């Protein structure tokens, strides 16, 4: 097998590989043709590294990228929330918006619970502090962070299950259409046919709208399909 070579890019500042060529994906390289491993050793498109927040693009239910949401965020004021239940794409949207902010020249920092004082990005550019899992923060931690953000004119963007009373940028929900868009994206380089709408609907309902869990179930589905195609040796 000839070596597979291509250019692959990394979003500037995020150090996270993004494939430019559909043939080779960072950390998921071309198939091995080692006979001992069977006819190739393809990767599972539903593996955690491929579906975790930041790995998947945030797609609107129409399948289009959410390029306008960053613009809307800029118009909302000093703080905004992304509201939604578990596995509805909130963290994915946060990563998308953080990347958009960096591309626009903003300084971005991710705040962790208990480390609000260290969260503020440095520099003179427009600054953004991103908080994932905002409902887990104590009131005291919030007050400290909001106070520092106000003093430094830093904007806040939070993902939360519970309404913080902030302007809502996006209310994340999972529909079958959303699941179809995400699964089609994950299987775009695979010969595997897409799961049926009925199958996806069942998965979304079984997992109470948690797309993350539905994708984990599709990990098993993909493995079982691949194993059923592997000839006996």
């Amino acid at each position, binding site marked *: *097998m*000839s*070596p*597979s*070579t*291509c*250019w*692959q*890019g*990394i*979003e*500037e500042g995020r*150090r996270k*590989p993004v494939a*430019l*060529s559909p043939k*080779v994906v*960072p*950390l*998921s*390289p*071309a198939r*091995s*043709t*080692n006979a*001992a*491993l*069977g006819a190739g*050793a393809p*990767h*599972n498109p539903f*593996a*955690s*590294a491929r579906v975790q927040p930041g790995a998947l693009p945030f797609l609107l239910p129409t399948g289009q990228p959410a390029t306008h949401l960053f613009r809307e965020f800029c118009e909302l004021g000093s703080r905004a929330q992304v509201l939604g239940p578990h596995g509805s794409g909130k963290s994915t949207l946060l990563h998308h918006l953080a990347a958009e902010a960096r591309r626009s020249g903003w300084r971005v920092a991710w705040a962790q619970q208990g480390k609000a004082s260290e969260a503020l990005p440095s520099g003179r550019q427009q600054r953004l502090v991103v908080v994932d899992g905002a409902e887990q923060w104590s009131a005291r931690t919030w007050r400290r962070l909001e106070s520092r953000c106000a003093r430094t004119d830093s904007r806040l963007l939070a993902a939360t299950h519970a309404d913080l009373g902030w302007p809502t940028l996006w209310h994340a929900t999972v529909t079958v259409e959303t699941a179809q868009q995400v699964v089609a994206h994950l299987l775009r380089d695979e010969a595997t046919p897409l799961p049926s709408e009925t199958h996806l609907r069942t998965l979304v309902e079984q997992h109470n709208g948690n797309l993350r869990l539905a994708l*984990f179930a599709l*990990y*098993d589905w993909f*493995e079982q399909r691949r*194993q059923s195609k592997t000839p006996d040796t």
Partner: protein
Amino acid sequence: MTPLASVKFDDDRRDYAPGDSLSGRLEVTTMPHADAVVVKAEFSVLWYTEGKGDQDIGVVHLERLWENRSQPAGEHHFSVRLPLLPLTYHGHLLKIHWLARLRLDLRPGQDVLVDEPFNVLAGD
């Protein structure tokens, strides 16, 4: 897409035993644009996991090749002694992959990665 850099294994080999020497050459043939400068170039050999759990990575070799070059660096030979573990593994819940990686930190522009997979297999 025109390849600008590559990682090639000697004898086009893909399968190695634990403790084997992984050898080959790195090539940077052309730059993506006239004013591109390779601020940093690194070669690494690593394994990583894939599955339902958190991804784990182990870098067994890391080598800084050159810095601040505006012209293609040509060919660079490498030879890395592979460890005894982990072995390449493809299970249902967990997979372990090995690859050799050439990373070019370009300015202006984005970093580029060239990954070449290989297997570490137990002997008979």
